[in-house]
């Protein structure tokens, strides 16, 4: 047997091999793509927002695992498994946009699940628009996200101005004649300011007398603000800010011997970190949540809200908050839209545009609550249907106290020991 090297043979074999690879691999790739729905997740897996980013990932992953247990999303009688691809936004808007582009071009995803923060969502929106890839955001809460009327982006959580506005109205209704005055304070930065604006609107809508509305820089010492509140002692104090501001407010108020009769804050107040760090001082504080495990919602995949909470706990070891729940419900929206679309993946640009239209027409009930996206106005493509739940911290537990259909306990008012 001759082992003599033949240049001609080598070149011929190389050419044939390269040709086979060039022609064969796309064919293999296409057949693999045909069988699956490729979902890209852009979120903050590192950087300052990695904690929240990983919550969103948990929510999306839980849905993917559950739907794949059934064989995938059912479209025209056939089930197509979902495959998840991840892009790390590194808590930076620009990195989020890069990650989205990579997912669309390299991983050829059919649909995107959106980032944790509103800032990154705003940066990814033009990318999803450019490539006509629908993006369902399980987390962005700033109303600014929807002002630009993004054609391919849909938000599961109602914008913060809607939730705080409605929650103040719900609270005022529940308190009735017991509360007549309110003061609103908030950090002078986009998200917190929008939260405070929502509270102010709610105060005005519910007919309460607004004693003061004040914004302050995030770096401020709160003693002056607390002293002013103490001197007027309104029936309700609402705070727009993040968890660290809430903790500082509670610490400063305690040190100045002031305890509001009702203190309502936003999202961070339901987190275990806030309750741990403020200890017994958190008792009686009110918060706003668009979802809790006690709500009477259900769907076919996850069962009731309580079932979802148990499932998430058994999978991740912690109880889910509303961000995680909204992210899992994003998958339910995709499921429903794909079923109505009735076209097998992979989806080209035109089909993806049709999918976006199908998502826009969503009108479903899920364990997370009702989902339906606004088709006009300043909250375009934002799910405005959920009614926020006012929760109260009672001995370390987060208890829904209003509205009545979601209530699991009585609203304590005024907070024991109030000024």
């Amino acid at each position, binding site marked *: 047997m001759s082992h003599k090297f033949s240049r001609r043979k080598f070149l011929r074999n190389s050419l044939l091999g390269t040709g086979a690879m060039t022609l064969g691999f796309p064919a293999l790739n296409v057949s693999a793509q045909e069988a699956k729905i490729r979902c890209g997740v852009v979120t903050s897996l590192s950087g*300052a927002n990695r904690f929240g980013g990983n919550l969103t990932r948990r929510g999306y992953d839980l849905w993917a695992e559950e739907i794949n247990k059934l064989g995938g999303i059912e479209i025209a009688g056939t089930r197509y498994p979902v495959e998840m691809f991840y892009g790390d936004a590194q808590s930076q808007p620009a990195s989020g946009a890069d990650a989205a582009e990579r997912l669309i071009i390299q991983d050829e995803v059919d649909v995107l699940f959106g980032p944790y923060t509103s800032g990154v969502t705003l940066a990814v929106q033009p990318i999803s628009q450019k490539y006509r890839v629908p993006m369902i955001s399980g987390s962005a809460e700033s109303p600014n996200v929807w002002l630009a009327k993004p054609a391919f982006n849909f938000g599961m959580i109602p914008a913060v101005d809607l939730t705080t506005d409605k929650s103040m109205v719900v609270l005022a209704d529940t308190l009735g004649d017991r509360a007549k005055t309110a003061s609103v304070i908030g950090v*002078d930065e986009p998200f917190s300011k929008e939260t405070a604006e929502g509270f102010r609107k709610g105060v005005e809508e519910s007919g309460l007398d607004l004693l003061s509305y004040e914004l302050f820089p*995030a770096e401020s010492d709160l003693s*002056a603000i607390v002293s002013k509140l103490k*001197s007027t002692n309104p029936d309700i104090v609402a705070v727009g800010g993040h968890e660290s501001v809430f*903790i500082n407010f509670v610490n400063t108020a305690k040190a100045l*011997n002031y305890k509001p009769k009702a203190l309502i804050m936003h999202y961070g107040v339901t*987190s275990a*970190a806030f309750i741990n*760090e403020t200890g017994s001082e958190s008792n009686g504080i009110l918060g706003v949540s668009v979802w809790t495990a006690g709500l009477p919602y259900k769907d076919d995949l996850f069962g009731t809200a309580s079932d979802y909470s148990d499932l998430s706990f058994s999978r991740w070891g912690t109880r889910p908050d509303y961000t995680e729940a909204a992210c899992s419900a994003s998958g339910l929206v995709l499921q429903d839209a794909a079923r109505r679309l009735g076209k097998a993946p992979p989806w080209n640009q035109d089909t993806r545009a049709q999918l976006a239209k199908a998502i826009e027409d969503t009108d479903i009930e899920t364990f997370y609550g009702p989902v339906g996206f606004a088709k006009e106005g300043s909250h375009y493509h934002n799910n405005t249907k959920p009614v926020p739940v006012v929760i109260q911290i009672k001995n370390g537990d987060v208890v829904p106290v209003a509205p009545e259909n979601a209530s699991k306990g009585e609203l304590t008012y005024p907070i024991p020991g109030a000024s």
Partner: protein
Amino acid sequence: MDLFLQTLVNGILIGGILICLTIGFQLTFGVLHVIDFAVGGWAMLGGYTAYWLVTLAGIDPFISIFLVFALFLLIGRGLGPLIYRVRTSRYARPDLMALAFTFGLFLFMRGGALWLWSYNSRSVESVLSGQFLSLGPVTIPLMRLSAFLMAMLFSLGLFILLYRSRFGMAVRALAQNRDHAGLMGVDVKRVSAWVYGIYTGLTASAGVLIATIYSVNPTVGIRYTLFAFFVAVLAGLGSVGGVLIAGLALGLLEAYVATYIGARYSLLIVFGTLYLALLVAPKGVLGRGI
């Protein structure tokens, strides 16, 4: 009138916190001529150390503050020669190199804190947390009062060290002229390293008090750096005595603006005042700055 008096107390106590934070910073600038961008980072790490000591070992911040001082004194003493080397480098613009070095150090601290303690804010509980003293209509939070007293103690201790000890004499000589001090027999490197150690010890101790009054998270460092710069510039860079007046002035200004004009404008007016101070008295309130 009640609110006016309460604001006066609030302002003085904010001033105490600012003085705590800045006094070591001024010392290190006066001696090493380093604008230490990591000042907020040292305060943040002091706060986190107190958090660990109270949650893991149950040591109250009023005891742990001494442990934190000792620990960070040694860390700063260890790091001091490196800072000195960067600052006295023969390469171009060692002053800017030192600034960049401390900025890098600050980023390292912030990243390390994120990795160790995550993004969540931590409260540091003390026996005095939430305790207050009522004097008629005025409420004096005891933690803030302690911070104010600690600021006075820091200042007094520093003055005694600087004006009543041989080490202090060497420090002052170094601040006046490093080369001449060296020629007179002062071990410049050693004294500089100890000064940096004292600075980190004092700032981390201030961080313990600040974390007990507010809370601590990895992002607070930049805020404290900013405030330290405010006070240092108004005091006159390098002027330890000016810190007392500048800290109180800025504390009172912030409190009165927040109460009577609007909290939204407090930092704007503080910035404006600083700008005017730089125009009118660039050497600070006592005219002793560099």
